[in-house]
């Protein structure tokens, strides 16, 4: 079963008079349980594609079906719901809320669904323990190392049990060891049945995935070889 079915996606950024064509007729399918890496050099349009997949940005043309929902026709309310329930987004820069502690950051998606803090804490305890953050739940993000912060971000993406995990250069801001930890974790999550799409400019990182596609100048090619 396909979680993602994208066809002929086009996206341009308008800047003043001229426009920059970033995604050119991109088509992509991702099956449930797949672990996919999108590999491409900086500026090739990876993040743009990821933001469209994550319903954070809109495409100009094309069709996109996410877990049986036609995203191109979805209204803001549905998009909010998709972001909250179907997608777990992991960013290069972690993007934790600095004023909230670890626990509060992690349970946020559950609070958005209408859970109380206590319910959300219960529901996220398992994930927190799996990621080794149990001792840290009362810390603020700035009291944690980069690797720990990224684990908090991963926990936040996981607690809602989304249909798909999206990771935009998840190791990009980390040192080599922490990056390895994160990739090991992704392997485990994949083994547990999670669907993962990861973006990277690093072939070594991409090779951790089971399938690799390349993006070059806004065009998508199957396979890791040019």
């Amino acid at each position, binding site marked *: 079963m396909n979680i993602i079915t994208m066809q002929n996606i086009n996206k341009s950024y308008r800047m003043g008079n001229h426009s920059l064509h970033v995604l050119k007729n991109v088509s992509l399918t991702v099956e449930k349980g797949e672990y996919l890496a999108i590999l491409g050099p900086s500026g090739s349009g990876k993040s743009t594609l990821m933001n469209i997949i994550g319903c954070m940005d809109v495409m100009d043309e094309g069709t996109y079906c996410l877990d049986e929902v036609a995203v191109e026709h979805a209204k803001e309310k549905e998009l909010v719901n998709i*972001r*909250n329930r179907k997608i777990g987004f992991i960013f290069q820069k972690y993007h*934790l*809320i600095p004023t909230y502690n670890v626990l509060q950051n992690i349970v946020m998606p559950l609070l958005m669904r209408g859970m109380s803090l206590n319910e959300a804490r219960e529901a996220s305890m398992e994930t927190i323990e799996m990621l080794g953050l149990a001792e840290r739940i009362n810390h603020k993000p700035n009291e944690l190392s980069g690797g720990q912060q990224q684990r908090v971000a991963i926990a936040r993406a996981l607690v809602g049990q989304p249909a798909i995990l999206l990771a935009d250069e998840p190791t990009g801001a980390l040192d080599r060891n922490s990056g390895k930890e994160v990739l090991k974790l992704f392997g485990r999550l994949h083994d547990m049945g999670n669907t993962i799409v990861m973006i990277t400019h690093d072939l070594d990182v991409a090779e951790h995935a089971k399938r690799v596609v390349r993006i070059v100048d806004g065009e998508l090619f199957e396979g890791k070889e040019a």
Partner: protein
Amino acid sequence: MKPGELLRLVWMNIIQNKFKTIMTSIGIIVGAATIVMVIAIGKGGKEDVADQFKNLNAGAIDISYDGGTDERNMESGGESTGGGGMAMPQGASGGFSGNAGNAGTGGGFGGGAPSFGGDFGGGGGDFSPGEMPSGGDFGRGGFFGGGNDMQERMNQENITLDEEDVDDIETFAAGVTDVTISYTTRSSVDGGELEEAATYTIGGVKENYADMSNLSLALGEFITEADDENKEKICVLGASVAEEIFGSAIEAYGSVIYIDERSYVVNGVLETMGTVSSGISPDDSIFIPYATGVKYLVGTKVNPTITVLAEDVNNIDGVIAEVTEVLAATYPNAEFTFEDAGSKMEAAAASNEILTMLLIAMAAIVFVVGGIGIMNVLFVSVKERTNEIGILKAIGCSQKNILFEFLCEAAAISLIGGVLGVGASLLVTPVARYFGVRVELSLSAFLIALLFAVGTGTIFGFYPAYKASKLVPVEALGAET
């Protein structure tokens, strides 16, 4: 999102930025405090006016001869002036006539100051006769009197209201329930615990004065008709006077005081009637029989005031017309000054109203400024927290929740500001009172201030909150902060 959880987040944001919250809400603090004070001072003013007039009959009309007109502005030296039947604030009119006197037009003090309290006449007592070339009355009576020759020239129609006029009005004027005549003067008083003689306001009054002015006695009795007929040297003391001279009403009752070095028995002491803003009140006065005062204190140089009580408060003008007609029979060319309590009350209430309106306008401005302050801070806050808004959107926070979060934050900041403002007003109140402003705090003022505070914050907080909620997630996230 559950409202409770949303509020928890709002609360977290606020307590983690205590300093910023306080700084943001300063405008609201000042605004709320201003509102409380405005209402309290307005209320105080209203009660002040009410207090001042509570002893006043709305139907009372003071009639005095205004000697200060251009043709006939000479009353005698002004040793005594029209006493009012009404105890009421009259600082303004008194001051006015004082100016006229200084300007050299002379004129009886009675002009423009028909009611109780002739302080100004006595105020001139410092001028010694020797220093004053025109001598005579001037020294004793104060500077309101003009020179002697001037007086002779213009005094052909020297008019003094008297008891016969009272009888005439009683007999011929319709719509009048009661009439009395009185005057006030200032005289030196000694006795009791006083170490040296002091100057007090003396009111020469008839037996019905107490009723007409709603005076009530704490001890003894008021001046009687017999006292007046026999020119008895008795007196009734205002509550404050009794306390000043004797320490208490009980001590005062039956004792003797010396007015202008003659002994008077204290036949009664009044209850405290309440102070009046101009400082002239029955509390600070000594009442003696009308005739006694004429005989021993003021002589013929008296310019009394006749006070009539209209039967119907709504027919003041009719009564004034009646009285004018009656007096015209005796004094064909004279013009009298009428002043009725109702219009005085209205004037006082109106000026108080204007003050209140001004204060409210001020409070409104403060609130708008405070509101704009909140809006600014929230805009900055939205900008600072664009990234956070982007994150919230990325994990599925709805526009509605973001709008609510920012709105609640604005409202909460304003509520805190409102509470602090109410607190500040409690601190300001004693200061205002120290400076003599009457401040009447009330629960409703607190609630109104809080309501206004939250309202202002929410209204001015809406636009930034709305802006925040409409941010595109990817743009909010990408924003470098």
